[in-house]
Structure formats: C-alpha cells, structure tokens
C-alpha cells in the first residue's frame, strides 16, 4: 500500500506541486513572521545592551503620568543638577554623569526640509565626550554654544557635512536655531546609528535650554561603580540616598526595560502578520481540498481496482492521507526555508529603513519551526480528509464501468452551507452588537471565518446560474461557449476555486467599505463641525507630532480679516488617577465658535485657571458633574485640582477633557499642535493664507492649509492603513490565482481525450487556448463577484454596528469593486496561460489513444 501511494505520488508530482505551493506560501508567511520579529527583537536587545553598556546604575525621575504600551511613552520629568551632586556622594560611585537625551531635536536638511523618522527617536543630547561605544569620525567636539556634532546616519540623511551651518528645531524653542556642525560621530562596529536614532549633541547648557526648557536639569543620571562594587548594591544605596520620586535601575534593567516596550510592539506586529497568514492558509486549504478531490476523481478507476483486488476502505483513506502527509511535509520544509529567507530579507529592509539597525545574526525561533510543520501538515491533512473519505466510498465495480461520475446532488452541501453561514452570521451579529462581552474580537473573527466556509459550501449552488450568466458574455464564439460549459460542468470544483478568490477579495472589499465609510463620516463631521477656513498643522511621521511656536497664534490673530484664532495642545495625563487624553484650547471661545461644541451643563464659553471642562461621555463614565473637583497630573509639575465648570456634548471630534490654557506649559509638548483660523465675513482665504505662510517660514514642520485640504490630510492616514492591508491580503489572492491555475491544469489533464477529440475535428490551437481562457475568466470573475458581494455585506454589517461610534455614512467603493472585477478578469487570463498552452500542445493522436 505504501509503495502504491508513493508511486502514485510520483506519477502526479506536477499536480501536487501547485497545491503544495499554496501550503509553501502560507507556511512561508507564518515562519517568516516569526523569524522577522525574532531577528528584530534580538537586534533591539543588542542596541539597548550597547547603549547601556557603560552604565552601572541609572537614575531618573518617576514619570508623572503612568501609561501602558498602547497609551504612549511615559515621560520622565528632568532631574535637578543638585541630585547629581547627591549621587556623587554615595559610597561606591566612581563617576556620575548628568545626561540629556530627549526626543524632538529635528534637523533641517540641506534641502530645507526637516529630516523625519518613522519610529526611532530624534534625540537632542549634551556632548559627553568619546567612549568605547561612540567616537568622532570627523571634526571635533562642540565647544561653543553654537556648535553641534551629529551621528553619521543623520549627517547622511540630512545631506550635511562638517563646516556647514545647519538649522535645528527643538521642542522648547519657537523658531529653528542655526548651528555650526563641527563634528560627526559614529558607533563601535562601524555603525552609523544606534537602532536608527538620529542624534544631535549640543553643549550641556544649550541642550538643557533647548531640550528640557530649563537650566541645571538633566534627563537622567548615569553612574559608574567603583571596581568591586556590585551593581545591585550600588543601586540600592543610591535609591536610599535620592529618596522617593526617582527610579534607580541597573544598566541591565534599563536595557531590558527599554527592549521590553519594543518587544511588546513587535509581538503585536507578529500577531497581525499571523492573522494575515491565517487568511492565506484558509485560501490554501480550499486549494488543497480541490486538488485532492480532483485527483481522487481522476483515480476513481485505479482506486476501484485496488478495492476490487482486496484493499479495504481504510487502506484507501490511508493512501490518500499518506499522500497528503508527504505533500504537507515537503511543503512545510520548503515553506520554512522560504520563510527564513523572507524573514531575513524583511529584517534587512527594516534595518535599512530604520537608518542602519545593526541586525543580530539570523535565528530560527522554535515557534517558526513548530508553526511551519504544525500548520503545513495539519492544513494539508485536514484538507485531504474529505476527498479521502469520498475515495473510500468508491465501489470496486467502478473499475469495470466507464467512469461516468454522475453529478452528486448538491442538497447536502447546500444545507450544511446554509447552517454554517447562519451560525457565522449569528456570531457576527453577537460580536458586532456588543453582546459577546470580553470575547467580542474572537466572536467576530469566528463569525467571519464561518461565514466564509458557509459561503464556500453554498457556492456550488450559486455557481450554476451565475457562471451560466457570466459565460453568456463569451457564448458568441464556439471556444467561448465550450469554455463556459466547462466552467459549469463541475460546480464543486468551480465553486471551491472561486471561493478561494472570494476570501481575499471579500476581506479587501470589506475593509475598504469600512475605512471609506469611516473616512466619509469623519470628513462629513469635520466639515460640519469645524468652522475654520485655515488650519495650521504638520504631518506626523514619528512618535512626536509636529508643533509650532505659540507666538504664531497671536501674530495670526493680528492679520486683517482673521476673526478668531485657536491653538490646540494635547497630551496624556492622569485625570483622577486614570490615563486620559487632555486638550487645551488657547482660545476657549473657539470651542463653541469654531468646533460647534454644545454645552449640556454649566458654561463652556470661558475657563478660569482652576476650572476644566468635560465631554458628556467622559463626564458620564467618570461620574463627574458641574462643580465636581478633579485632580489632574500632567507630564510635568505637581498634581493640581480643578473644578468642573462645564460639560459639552461628545462627538467623535471632541477631546474627553479640556484644561485651561495655563496647563499647556506642563504638557510633554508645550507647543500647539494645530492652529485653527476663522476668517471674518468677506475676508478671502487667498489673501490671508500667504501672510500665515510667512509666519511659519521658520518652521518647515508645519504648514497652513484650507479646511478641505486639512480634512483630507487627516483622513489620509486611513489610506495608508488600507494600502497596508491590501498588500498583506494580496498574498491570499496570489494563492487563489495558484488555485485557478491548478484547477485548470488538472481539468486539462482530465480532459486530454476530449481536447484531442476537439482538435481532431478541427479546433485550432488558438481556439483551444481561448476556450481554456474563457473558463478561467468565468471562474475568477465569479470568485471576485462573490468576494465583492460578501465583502460588501461584511463591511456594511460592521458599519451598521459602528453607527453609534459615529460612522454614519455607508460608502460603497463602486470604483474599487469594478476594479476588482476587472482585475479578476485579468487574473483569469493570466492563470489560464500555462494550462492553455498545455492544452494547445496536446498531441492529437496521443490524446485519442490516451488511456
């Protein structure tokens, strides 16, 4: 039996290669995700280990606002220079250094634009001299207050060299300042940066003034122990000496803590990648199921003969499953190898993007190996199980009969499809209506998964009429007509092939519906609520949003034709102990006059220095009303108690809490992030705008745009998200295309005799190819049609469920849907190429004599 299986496997290697390829791709995705995140994780470990190498103990102030990973980076307030003196007196301290290193030092490149970062910080520091880690490559250290040195990666990104005069924008200064670039430094091992961070080093007083906003303070204190003094002991001694309000950690703890934050992000990223891998594998399962079904059908005679000569049904199942295991194993090995390659490549690309992240050596985590084999084997065997069961039911007599496999009725499939779809829809409904409690996400995902399976089961029933209808387009020519009939002759096969394409396209369509609806709803709301003709803002490219000088607000208010100006500040704060986004409007009147806020209680038109406002939702959930006293701890300064003086109606655009303008001084970014300008009646945007532009000339980070452009810019973030999802789902679609190629190739093989007959009675090669192409196009357009329909349904359901969250418009992306259908037609043509060539090359005589 084993020999027979092995021989039949070898005999049909071409057929199995394509279905194996689907598993290979899925496994590649899974193992690639693990390898990528593992490599990046270890690389970051190394970066932080290096960064804290010379540090035995570190002292910094406890952040005022405790935040978890998703809420943002906690901000530690600076430590006073006096603390440095106190640390130096602790026994066992060999050396204590006051360090300044804060995010937000932006260099203006030689092209006049700010050098951006997509993640790593842009540090402004005090120059501490060379070390084992850091050496000057060119020039000298900064001595005067207008001198700086920068790291090599930044020099390259900015296109500047030693001797240049360069502009630097810093968080506590309203305007950029010019400096002499006197040196460029690099890191041990020839690295141009540590983990992609851009670094600008000033003299200590300048760094204090620009990066921390006050003299005689440091970001943290770095301590080196006297030889023979243990890090832990020294840490505890220093902690005792500095008292409460400070975090004292060993260098090892520091690097572990820093890496832990990033790793949490990486593991989230890994989960997302695995989610997409799951989609790809679902599609791959369809493909394998189809391949094994077709192979079993084609082997009916052979299997029946085996039954006739005494093989049991069990042995038949065993033989098919054995085949699946072999395919799954080989595919897993190949997929793992490909995944390691892809993971390494992506890690390399990521390293390059991040400005030269030195990668740790390539490693294959156990999870990648276990995932690869688990997924590859399980998927293949599960997919082969149904066909195997069917094979076992082939009666021995079939060996003697002509293989006239009658059309099995679709009743069973359709009924089970209906049930599964119904269960899926119910789960979706439960999840979306918020009745699933903690399991909402799982319920929704499960619902979507079951809905796909159910739809795939229902597809054979739908395929007859729809494929007939689609094919009618081509029925004017003989090859077209034959192609149409071929695509309809095996509803299950067509259905599974089309369903594989359906999954990818449905997800893309669904996501597009949701994001487009969200975009349109938010735009509509913004247009409705924001009564400002001009908006000052910048595009955020890193963790830190661009900000501008508050003086710009006053100057803008003085421009003739400008009626009302408001600057918006924002930060995370602890409001009665809970991390909360708080906003400051420089002009409280703007709440009503620009943002159309409606008071539901109290007065929201003015705000005293000890008063604050709540949105109605937040007030309700925090049980706060006008007159309540609320304690707020900002990123800096001491906690402060405010009295609630007003409550405004919540909308999607309102901030939970509004503080008086004075509070902005203690925000992590004490500058406005957005400015809103309302023009007087009759004033023209074209007249005012250039004058605002001159005000912003010094700050290339931000610009002034009219309202429509601002709204577009804000919602364009959703476009990026959509694109990323589309790219990741493209893999599922690629696998579906493989499926179409596979089905066609198998059908061509199966119909060799028929094709020979057609050629014998005069069908030309080109006509033969056209026939196959029509079949492919009909199947793929059918799949796309299903996908668009199912995706629209899913998207609409989600949008409906999000109605309360303010997504009120249902936007159907007709253009996109049309595009998908067109794309599907092209996919069909492409998928048909190889099978069509194969069909056209069939040797007429060989086909007729074919047994």
């Amino acid at each position, binding site marked *: 039996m084993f020999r027979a299986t092995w021989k039949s496997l070898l005999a049909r290697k071409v057929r199995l290669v394509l279905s194996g390829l689907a598993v290979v791709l899925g496994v590649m995705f899974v193992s690639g995700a693990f390898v990528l995140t593992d490599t990046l994780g270890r690389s970051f470990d190394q970066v932080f280990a290096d960064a804290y190498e010379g540090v035995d103990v570190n002292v910094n102030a406890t952040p005022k606002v405790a935040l978890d990973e998703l809420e943002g980076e906690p901000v530690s307030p600076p430590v006073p220079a006096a603390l440095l003196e106190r640390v130096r007196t602790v026994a066992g301290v060999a050396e204590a250094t006051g360090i300044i290193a804060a995010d937000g030092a932006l260099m203006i490149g030689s092209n006049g634009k700010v050098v951006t970062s997509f993640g790593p910080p842009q540090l402004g520091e005090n120059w501490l001299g060379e070390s084992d880690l850091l050496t000057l490559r060119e020039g000298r250290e900064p001595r005067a207050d207008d001198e700086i040195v920068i790291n090599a990666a930044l020099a390259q990104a900015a296109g500047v060299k030693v001797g240049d005069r360069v502009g630097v924008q810093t968080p506590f200064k309203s305007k950029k300042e010019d400096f002499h670039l006197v040196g460029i430094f690099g890191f041990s091992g020839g690295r141009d940066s540590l983990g992609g961070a851009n670094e600008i080093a000033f003299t200590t007083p300048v760094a204090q003034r620009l990066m921390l906003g006050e003299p005689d303070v440091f970001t943290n204190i770095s301590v080196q122990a006297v030889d023979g003094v243990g890090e832990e002991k020294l840490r505890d001694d220093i902690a005792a000496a500095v008292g409460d309000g400070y975090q004292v950690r060993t260098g090892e703890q520091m690097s572990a803590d820093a890496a832990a934050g990033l790793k949490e992000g990486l593991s989230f990223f890994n989960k997302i990648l695995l989610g997409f891998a799951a989609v790809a594998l679902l599609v791959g399962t369809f493909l394998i199921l189809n391949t094994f079904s077709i192979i079993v059908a084609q082997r009916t005679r052979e299997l029946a003969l085996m039954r006739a000569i005494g093989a049991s049904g069990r042995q038949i199942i065993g033989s098919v499953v054995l085949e699946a295991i072999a395919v799954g194993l080989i595919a897993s090995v190949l997929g793992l190898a490909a995944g390691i390659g892809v993971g390494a490549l992506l890690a390399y690309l990521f390293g390059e993007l991040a400005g030269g992240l030195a990668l740790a050596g390539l490693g294959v985590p156990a999870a990648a190996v276990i995932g690869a084999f688990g997924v590859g084997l399980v998927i293949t065997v599960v997919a082969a199980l149904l066909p195997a069961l069917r094979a076992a039911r082939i009666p021995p007599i079939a060996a003697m009969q002509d293989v006239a496999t009658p059309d099995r009725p679709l009743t069973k499939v359709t009924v089970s499809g209906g049930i599964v779809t119904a269960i899926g829809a119910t789960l979706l409904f439960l999840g979306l209506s918020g009745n699933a409690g903690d399991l909402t996400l799982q319920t929704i995902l499960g619902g979507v998964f079951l809905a796909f399976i159910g739809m795939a089961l229902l597809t054979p029933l739908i395929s007859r009429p729809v494929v007939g209808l689609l094919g009618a387009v081509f029925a004017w020519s*003989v090859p077209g007509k034959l192609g149409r009939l071929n695509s309809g002759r095996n509803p299950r096969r067509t259905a599974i092939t089309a369903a594989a394409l359906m999954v990818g396209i449905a997800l893309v369509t669904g996501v597009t519906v949701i994001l487009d609806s969200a975009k349109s709803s938010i735009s509509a709301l913004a247009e409705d609520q924001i009564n400002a003709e001009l908006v000052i803002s910048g595009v955020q490219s890193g963790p830190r949003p661009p900000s501008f000088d508050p003086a710009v607000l006053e100057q803008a208010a003085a421009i003739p034709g400008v009626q009302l100006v408001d600057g918006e500040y924002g930060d995370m704060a602890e409001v009665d102990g809970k991390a909360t986004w708080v906003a400051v409007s420089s002009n409280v009147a703007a709440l009503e006059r620009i943002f159309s806020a409606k008071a539901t209680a109290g007065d929201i038109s003015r705000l005293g220095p000890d008063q604050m406002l709540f949105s109605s939702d937040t007030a309700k959930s925090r049980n706060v009303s006008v007159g309540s006293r609320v304690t707020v701890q900002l990123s800096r300064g001491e906690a402060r108690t405010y009295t609630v003086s007003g409550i405004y109606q919540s909308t999607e655009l309102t901030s939970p809490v509004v503080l008086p303008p004075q509070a902005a001084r203690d925000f992590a970014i004490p500058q406005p992030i957005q400015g809103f300008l309302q023009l007087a009646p009759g004033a023209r945007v074209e007249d005012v705008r250039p004058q605002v532009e001159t005000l912003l000339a010094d700050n290339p980070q931000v610009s002034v745009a009219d309202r429509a452009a601002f709204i577009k810019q804000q919602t364009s973030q959703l476009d990026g998200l959509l694109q990323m999802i589309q790219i990741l789902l493209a893999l599922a679609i690629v696998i579906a295309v493989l499926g179409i190629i596979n089905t066609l190739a198998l059908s061509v093989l199966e119909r060799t005799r028929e094709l020979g007959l057609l050629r014998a009675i005069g069908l030309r090669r080109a006509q033969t190819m056209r026939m196959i192409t029509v079949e492919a196009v009909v199947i793929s357009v059918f799949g796309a049609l299903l996908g668009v329909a199912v995706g629209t349904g899913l998207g609409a359901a989600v949008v409906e469920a999000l109605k309360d969250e303010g997504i009120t418009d249902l936007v159907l992306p007709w253009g996109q849907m049309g595009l998908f259908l067109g794309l599907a037609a092209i996919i069909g043509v492409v998928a048909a190429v190889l099978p069509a060539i194969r069909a056209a090359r069939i040797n007429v005589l060989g086909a007729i004599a074919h047994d």
Partner: protein
Amino acid sequence: MTATVGREAQVAARANDVWKVYGSGEAQVMALRGVSAEFERGRFTAIMGPSGSGKSTLMHCLAGLDSVTRGTVMIGDTTVTGLGDAGLTRLRRDKVGFIFQQFNLLPTLTAQENILLPMSIAGRKPDPAWYDTVIDTVGLRDRLGHRPAQLSGGQQQRVACARALVARPEVIFADEPTGNLDSRSGAEVLNFLRNSVREHGQTIVMVTHDPTAAAYADRVVFLADGQIVSELIEPTAETVLDTMKKLDTPVEVAR
C-alpha cells in the same frame, strides 16, 4: 462524377509508399512498411488485419493525425505530408470526418450540439435539408436534446456518425466504430455507414478486425505486419474470414 473525370480525381485518399517507424534502436517498431493504397471516392473501404498489423497507424497517417516516416499521403488534391499544425487542423476541419471506437462526444454538449460542433468550429452553417436527412437516417430526432451520458453506446456512436456526416467531408475515417457495441447496435451503425455511401456518395475508410463488419464494405484491404497483403472486392463475411485465415498462417509461421 462524369466519365471524363480521370481516375486521379476519383481518389479521396491515397497513401504512396508510406513507412512508419516508432522509436529507435532496440525498441524500434516498423508499424508500416511501404504501404501504397488508394481509397476511391464514394466507396466504403474496410482495412482489415490482425491486431498489431498497423491498421490504426495507417488510418492515423492517412487522416493527418500522425506523421509518416517516409512516403506521402494525400486527401483529395491536398498533400498531407509536410503540412504544419495549422494546415492539418484546417484539413481535419474541412475535409476529414472521424468516428472513434469510444469517447467520441463532448459530455457537456447535447447530441445536436455535438453533431454541429465541427461546423460551428469552422463557422459554417449546415445545409438544413442535408441536416434533416442525416438526423432522420441515424434516427436520433427524439434524442437531440440529450447529453451523451443519457444515450446508449449505440446511440452515442450514431451521434458520432451523424457528426462526421453533417459536414460532408471528403472522407470519413472510422477506427473500429463498432468495437464497443453489441452486435445489434453494431449492425445499425454499419448499415447507416453503408447507406451514407450508397445513397449520398460519402467516402468512408473503416478500420476493423471484425469480418462481419468488414462485409458491409465495398472493398477490403488486408494488412499484415505493416504491409498490404491482399484485397477483396464486394466481400462477404465468409470470404473475409477465409482470407484472414490464409493470412494468419504464414504470419504465425514467420514468428
């Protein structure tokens, strides 16, 4: 067909010193060794011979389904030898009809669609009167809407015959058309083939190893070991059987 038309024009298919060699070296098989034969227009010729004698090979070469190793083949005034795929396809579409032993029909098409398929492929319309005649002679009018799976073997072969006839090809090649049928269905098909020759002047070349089937033909050509060894005009089942027996003995001896 008038008396002035020479013998040349009356030949529907011709093989001229045709050799066919399969494989090379040790595995070489000489399927045909210098076969020369003419198949006249409006005649029903049977090619007889023991299994492995090269009947199918000769037919495939004549029909342009297979290339010859040496010699030439002509259908009507077209030289088949040396034609490319496009030329061969056109030849099959316009001048030749086929009836195979089995798997003659496309399972997705109805009987009628199968019958009209060669004409649809060629983009031609059948002559309605001729189409009616063919349908009536094969006696399939009430089965036209059925698919092959719903037809008996004999009916399927009759559909295949009708398909070959409707296009009025220069010549119809049939390879053991009754090989899979019981004797009654076989007789039906053979009668039908003979009638199409007698009444409508169709040219048919039929390969068979069954003397009874061969007796329906006007002429029988005998093949043995890839060579034409004998010929009978106006055969009967007995004369065919006799000739076969005579042929068999020396061949057995030669082995």
